[in-house]
């Protein structure tokens, strides 16, 4: 009796364990295949020209994506200038002033989570409607603003979470010394959570760096250096999209290289952010 029971238990245990192992290997394996394939092809077609030269006309070999690298950097800068202040201050409000229960904080949290779930192409259409159509031309501004809007929800919630991670005893300690609430927040609470907040922002930036859809109808793309911020501007994700769907073999190769560069950048930001986070005071 006891023997059969324990046999059944062992059998079920082994089957379940094998199932979880098989599925884990499938998931991780396919991830590594994708990354490996991208790295292999991308590395293969990557050369110095990629970073320094403009795209060549169709049929002419060589060339690079220097304009797309600079364009991506410009748009990410604009996105940071929008996503970081809105996300940071909103997060400070939710964590330190809003409280757990009120109606307004609830609405803010709810709409932020909702905004986070809005498909990126819808954000792109929104930016097009507000920023591109009335002015009748595409621009790096519009692309950067679209990416900035995408950054806000995660920047806000991650700031809130890291501030919430600061023990209440810190706030009480400062206020018991006669610090006002605002002074406490800016001299004790935010510094204590700063590393976490920064790494959250970096991961957020890395995430929007690979977004294509919001840029398709805002920054469009370009095969030349764009003068200033108010013209159609190339970006790495849109270049990858355009090159990958083209019928030319050498464009495919450049798309691989661009994908690899984008992946490497995101990976680099991730590593730096996690390094910052691992030394954070309060996670």
């Amino acid at each position: 009796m006891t023997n059969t029971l324990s046999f059944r238990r062992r059998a079920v245990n082994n089957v379940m364990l094998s199932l979880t192992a098989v599925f884990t290997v499938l998931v991780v394996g396919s991830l590594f295949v994708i990354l490996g394939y991208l790295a292999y092809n991308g590395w293969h077609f990557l050369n110095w020209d990629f970073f320094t030269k403009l795209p060549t006309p169709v049929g002419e070999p060589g060339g690079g994506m220097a304009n797309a690298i600079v364009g991506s950097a410009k748009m990410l800068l604009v996105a940071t200038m929008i996503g970081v202040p809105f996300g940071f201050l909103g997060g400070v409000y939710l964590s330190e002033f809003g409280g757990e229960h009120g109606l307004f904080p609830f609405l803010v949290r709810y709409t932020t989570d909702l905004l986070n779930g809005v498909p990126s192409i819808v954000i792109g259409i929104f930016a097009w409607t507000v920023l591109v159509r009335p002015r009748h031309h595409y621009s790096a501004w519009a692309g950067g603003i679209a990416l900035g809007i995408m950054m806000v929800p995660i920047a806000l919630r991650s700031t809130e979470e890291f501030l919430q991670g600061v023990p209440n005893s810190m706030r009480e300690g400062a206020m018991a010394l006669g610090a006002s609430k605002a002074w406490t927040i800016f001299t004790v609470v935010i510094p204590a959570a700063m590393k976490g907040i920064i790494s959250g922002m970096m991961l957020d930036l890395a995430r929007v760096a690979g977004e294509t859809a919001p840029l398709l109808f805002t920054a469009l793309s370009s095969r030349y250096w764009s003068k200033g911020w108010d013209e159609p501007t190339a970006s790495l994700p849109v270049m990858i999209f355009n090159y990958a769907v083209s019928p030319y073999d050498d464009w495919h190769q450049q798309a691989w290289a661009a994908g690899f560069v984008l992946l490497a950048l995101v990976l680099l930001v991730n590593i730096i952010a996690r390094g910052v986070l691992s030394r954070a005071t309060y996670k």
Partner: protein
Amino acid sequence: MNEVDGTAVRMVQDPTQTIPAEATKPEMKVQLRTEGVNFYYGKYQALHGIDLDVYRHKITALIGPSGCGKSTFLRTLNRICETISHTRVEGKILLDGEDVMELDVTSLRRRVGMVFQRPNPFPKSIFDNVAYGARINGLHRQKRIRDIVEESLVRAALFEEVKDKLQQSALALSGGQQQRLCIARALAVNPEVLLLDEPCSALDPIATAKIEELLFVLKDTCTMVMVTHNMQQAARTAEYTGFFLLGRLIEFDKTDTIFRNPSKKETEDYITGRFG
């Protein structure tokens, strides 16, 4: 500040209360007086009509079983209880005769410092922890801040141990050192009253002995109110002791009297370990 008027108004409101006007003057021995303090967490009443006098430059211990309201009472004295929402205080708390509810809350807290149960140093350097209060007080001159930091660390009997590593993180100190750092941080603001909420409960006996020694020295400059679970500690350090039970102050007297000859049966039961 017109003390006499304040008293007169109070007597009109509540004729059963008769406090001699001179008792509210600063030169009297009573530094902190509470009258009929009630405290509510939402609808739950945690304190029932606490009347207690804290004498200048003495240590007053508050003892009682867990959840009896002694920490809550302590937290009303510097109004740090207000940081929790849905709470309410009734009654009067007088610091040198001034109603603390009418004082600016930040200046009240500079006069009434607090040390918490768990050491809570800020994640900053040792120096910056102690300098924090001085900087709040509007001091910017580096020399003056350095002097205050050193003086406070000396007063908290920590200076010798940390003088070579003032720029290191306060989080690297031991628990006992952290607690003395928190005391130094509170002293840097030069408070008249220091509230101590079970300051030794997270510490080992040696660190506890050091803190008790320190409290003894601090009496010269500071009035102290200490919540403690440790009755020996109350007996060793405090001149006056109050016994709390279920949100009421059952008995308040000289420590000797409370421990040797309590007048209430509940006090005696608690002291002799029959419950709690």
